[in-house]
């Protein structure tokens, strides 16, 4: 089985983002970028499937500007075998990304596609579910455990009430949650090796996908700030404030 892993280049999760002065978006120039943390978990899971002999090949795919090659190289350094860049600038909306990924999947014929549950820039949480819909494949979203058993995939999902188990008919789309695994760091030799692994490039045109946006961002602003609070020094003081000042207990 071949596993496809779509990965996104985003602002590093540790960076405090700043809204641009003209309110057109957030500041992206000279900011540290990294692989979306959920995508790292997706890559890790795919590599583990290959190490377990369940998968033969792991292909990472990124949709985005040419700098996304760095993210793909990170995936290759973690252990993916090949990379595909669908070059677009700017990065399109989730529906268009899902259409591009569908076109790639139709060329590659994977047995499973593993995505992150959410990209931490747009916080959309859509792409995997959309891709599964376009392909008419089964979907296991927010997965914290995954087991391949013949032609079915058993997954545990993190849902609001706790955990849910479902069995998917392969080929399946999986979106991963934080507790599925602990992604590995790429070693220096593997980073060197990754430079020589194959990376092919496509465009939306050659994949026959219209990526024109459906949404217009009118403005991006800072959220309302909370007013500064006060410090208390005892339990009695805290309870008194909560009861008589804030009136919340």
């Amino acid at each position, binding site marked *: 089985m071949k596993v496809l892993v779509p990965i996104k280049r985003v*602002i590093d999760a540790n960076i405090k983002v700043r809204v641009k002065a003209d309110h057109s978006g*957030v500041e992206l120039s000279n900011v540290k970028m990294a692989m979306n943390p*959920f995508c790292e978990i997706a890559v890790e899971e795919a590599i583990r499937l290959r190490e377990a002999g369940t998968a033969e090949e792991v292909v990472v795919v990124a949709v985005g500007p040419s700098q996304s090659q760095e993210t793909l190289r990170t995936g290759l350094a973690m252990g993916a075998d090949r990379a595909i860049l669908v070059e677009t600038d700017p990065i399109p909306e*989730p529906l*268009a990304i899902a259409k591009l990924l569908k076109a790639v999947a139709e060329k590659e014929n994977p047995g499973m596609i593993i995505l992150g*549950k*959410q990209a*931490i820039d747009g*916080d*959309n949480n*859509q*792409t995997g*579910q*959309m891709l*599964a*819909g376009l392909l*008419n*494949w*089964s*979907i296991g*979203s927010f997965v*914290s455990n995954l087991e391949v058993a013949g032609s079915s995939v058993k997954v545990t999902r*993190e*849902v*609001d*009430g*706790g*955990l*849910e*188990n*479902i*069995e*998917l*008919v392969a080929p399946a789309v999986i979106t991963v*949650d*934080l507790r599925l695994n602990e992604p590995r760091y790429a070693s220096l030799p593997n980073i060197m090796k990754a430079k020589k692994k194959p990376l092919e490039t496509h465009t939306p045109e050659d994949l026959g996908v219209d990526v024109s*946006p*459906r*949404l*217009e*961002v*009118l*403005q*991006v*602003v800072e*959220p309302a700030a*909370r007013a500064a*609070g*006060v*410090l208390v020094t*005892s*339990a*009695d003081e*805290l*309870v008194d*404030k*909560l*009861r008589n000042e*804030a009136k919340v*207990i």
Partner: protein
Amino acid sequence: MSILVIGEHDNSSLRPSTLNVVSAAKELGDSIDVLVAGSDCQGAAQEAATITGIARVLAADELALADGLAENLAPLIQSLAENYTHVLAPATTYGKNLLPRAAALLDVQQISDISGIESPDTFVRPIYAGNAMATVRSGDALKLITVRTTSFEAAEQTGSAPVEPVSGSVDAQLSTFAGEELTRSERPELTTADIIVSGGRGMQSSENFAMLEALADKLGAAVGASRAAVDAGYVPNDYQVGQTGKVVAPSLYIAVGISGAIQHLAGMKDSKIIVAINKDEEAPIFQVADYGWVVDLFEAIPQLDAALEATAR
């Protein structure tokens, strides 16, 4: 405007998230139908019928819909959608799993997790873990939207709308439900609780979390946690509050041994009053706290317990 609200339920009863979504729908227009799609789901449909201000409940009652599987539900939403200008679902794990699939089938770019409505085509939503708020206008004729439940009041339940049967689901046979491990608790549910006591890595163990649970019970509160506390196995996954867990906005949120990482703040900074209990005065949680107490939590919790006891009404 005619709006379809996807009701969230467990067949026998309606989930409260549906009530918040109906309130969002009311900001768009006054022709609102609520879909209850399940199996043996008359209980949930009857409860939906009591929501104030809705036109109808559409009840799709079929075996293939029993477990809320997106593969079977999305085609039903696709076939119903032509009668509406907007389809709304809660931004809960149920809605997040389902609605994007329906959007893809309908060739619509969904708008996720809206916290405000400017006009029938323009919406406000948090991005970058709530570090920025984006106002977006949709050019799609049909709008598919998931709604941040904490941003809209719960609709009242004083009505009696008619319940009409609908069909159109498919049994895609792509997935099967194989059981669940739901967290059972006598305490209020996190997303609707009026008071939440949350613990972080500072709690050090699941045994210590029992202290917080006792405190929560005194306050009639729900118990939440940071990702670090969940990852360490102190509490189950569904306790996680944050960018990638639950979004909550109680009247009172007490954060104990939580540093206040941006991803945690994303899930709780709309709470009315925030209390931070942390021994590190530099912890970022103090920047959003209304009342901060710089103290070792293992001293603070028993004292707080005692103070509540002493002044109990």
